[in-house]
């Protein structure tokens, strides 16, 4: 009896998620009823996302535990500034992807199945929104699965080529193996502690009566599942193939939103379960199960180095951006490896900027691929002169992805390196800096093809229509603006820094 009233009291915490679920149901209904007039579906989805966004903003200053069981204080669902920050990132990305999809030839070709497409896209969004708030291993697993299953289908959605089917199959196989391992880890944690709640896990760990060797083993298994979601080395092998084979809009979505949700999950998992106390200057002191900082640094450096060096030899732009997104995951992991509030702030800022610039780069690759049916770098020869807007914008996005001064990418890297230096991790900072130099090469190579190589007979002018032009500008202007005037992002991220702990 108690439990149910607890659940009903907690419903007010998940209003955005409920709004999103209703949108999914409406999408499916409209798909069924208005079989002929499918143009209306994206608008329904947009309205639903905006309503969801409104509810997220409405509970912005709210922090509480939801869905508690019995008389326990801690629940399955945690609402705090941190989760709201990531929910906003996920929603903004989803909205941009909706526009993105309406300008992607691959998706337009599958117009008669667009109801399915948008329903699955929202399914992914719903999974991610639960993922960033989940504070119970069961809910974590469920939301990861909801996200994964939708994305497997979407990866192979267009059915246009073998590449597409291959990507979907590879994603499915890697995904099911890693989620199986994760579930195994969760079951061991439950067997050891008798709880799946992260807060109770923390209490039990602080009391210190748990076999740490077994726990460490199970944690590694759980990290396999999360590492696969954020494509951290050595679980990144699926990324290039899947990103190359999937429709570009889905690639962009996976590389931004799905990664954001994975990071949010990782950070919350570490912060709520393994921090013994946070001191006055915001450093997290973790329980000594293993050397967290060294572990995270090793994974981060491995990830970024592998990503950057593999990107060097890529001639397919989508594949190159896939490797670059692996490298960015490495930088983000370094922000977490600082294990302090300052590092967390750097991660939040980095994510916001990464979202804008990565989506922008993918959008332009998409627009060009619409016209020339290719993502090969050699087809970009001289495109900077034939299509000035796209050329200049892509140049800005790539410079920003490198992290050079007048753009927002510089601010993101700046905060990250400040956090590293403040934590006395000079060597690590230098390695990350050298990695940035490596990344400069492959980003600038695209610029070289666009501007220094002369246009040949196969070069085509890509002049977008008004709406894509507005979207490009809406993504370029923030990149330039936040490069100079970045106080709003920083203060916004600072407000959202609190992860609810005990």
């Amino acid at each position, binding site marked *: *009896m108690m439990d*149910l009233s607890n659940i*009903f009291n907690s419903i007010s915490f998940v209003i955005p998620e409920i709004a999103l679920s209703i949108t999914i*149901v409406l999408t*499916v*209904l409209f*798909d*069924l009823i208005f*079989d002929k007039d499918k143009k209306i579906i994206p608008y329904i989805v947009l309205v639903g996302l905006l309503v969801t966004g409104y509810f997220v903003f409405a509970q912005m200053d709210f922090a509480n535990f939801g869905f508690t069981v019995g008389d326990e204080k801690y629940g399955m669902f945690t609402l705090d500034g941190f989760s709201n920050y990531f929910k906003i990132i996920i929603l903004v990305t989803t909205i941009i992807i909706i526009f993105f999809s309406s300008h992607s030839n691959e998706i337009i070709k599958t117009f008669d199945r667009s109801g399915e497409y948008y329903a699955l896209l929202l399914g992914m969004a719903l999974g991610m929104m639960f993922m960033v708030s989940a504070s119970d291993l069961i809910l974590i697993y469920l939301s990861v699965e909801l996200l994964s299953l939708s994305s497997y289908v979407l990866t192979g959605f267009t059915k246009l080529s073998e590449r597409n089917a291959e990507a979907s199959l590879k994603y499915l196989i890697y995904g099911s193996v890693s989620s199986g391992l994760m579930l195994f880890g969760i079951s061991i944690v439950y067997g050891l502690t008798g709880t799946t709640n992260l807060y109770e896990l923390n209490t039990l760990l602080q009391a210190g009566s748990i076999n740490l060797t077994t726990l460490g083993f199970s944690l590694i298994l759980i990290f396999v599942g999360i590492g696969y979601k954020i494509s951290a080395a050595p679980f990144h092998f699926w990324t290039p193939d899947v990103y190359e084979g999937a429709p570009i809009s889905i690639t962009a979505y996976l590389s931004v939103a799905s990664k954001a949700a994975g990071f949010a999950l990782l950070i919350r998992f570490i912060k709520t379960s393994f921090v013994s106390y946070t001191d006055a200057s915001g450093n997290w002191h973790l329980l000594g199960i293993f050397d967290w900082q060294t572990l995270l640094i090793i994974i981060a450096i491995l990830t970024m180095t592998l990503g950057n060096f593999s990107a060097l030899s890529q001639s397919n732009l989508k594949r190159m951006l896939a490797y670059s997104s692996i490298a960015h995951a490495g930088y983000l992991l370094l922000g977490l490896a600082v294990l302090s509030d300052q590092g967390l702030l750097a991660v939040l800022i980095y994510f916001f900027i990464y979202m804008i610039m990565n989506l922008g780069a993918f959008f332009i690759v998409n627009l060009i691929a619409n016209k020339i049916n290719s993502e090969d770098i050699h087809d970009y020869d001289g495109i900077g002169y034939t299509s000035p807007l796209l050329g200049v914008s892509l140049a800005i996005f790539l410079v920003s992805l490198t992290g050079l001064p007048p753009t927002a990418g510089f601010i993101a890297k700046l905060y990250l390196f400040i956090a590293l230096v403040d934590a006395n991790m000079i060597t690590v900072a230098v390695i990350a800096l050298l990695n940035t130099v490596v990344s400069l090469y492959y980003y600038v190579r695209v610029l070289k093809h666009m501007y220094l190589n002369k246009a040949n007979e196969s070069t085509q002018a890509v002049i977008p229509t008004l709406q894509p032009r507005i979207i490009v500008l809406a993504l370029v202007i923030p990149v330039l603006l936040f490069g100079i005037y970045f106080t709003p992002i920083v203060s916004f991220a600072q407000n959202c820094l609190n992860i609810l702990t005990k």
Partner: protein
Amino acid sequence: MLTEFGKIFIFILVAILFTIIAIYAAKLIRPSRPTKEKLDVYECGENIEGTPWVKFNIRFYVVALIFLIFDVEVVLLFPWALTYQDYGIYGFLVGIIFLVVLGLGMAYEWRKGDLEWARPTPKKVDVKFEKKNLLQTNSQINVESEN
């Protein structure tokens, strides 16, 4: 002393060893006179026709999936049916929402034609190409069975 899991470990060990030893012991003492028939894949005494890598109709999977969904639905509804009275109108609504969403899924399948067994109209195929392919596979099978 053995823990409970230790006993299970011994069981697993014995099971694995038993299989390995049985197979190898049989291999050591049995006569080995392989013929073509003995090495063939067993197919109820029939001669083998074609490869076992046949494409099954995807509809079998669709029907199996639909069955699975409703099977799980029944499992979830049993506990609800026993206790929903205790929770008043909310308890009732929870079950109804669940049923409505499932019903929507059912309607979706129906509308999208997943419940119809009729064969879709076949696409026009390049007959020459198909024939050549067919001949090739047939001859391959013949060669394989002759070996």
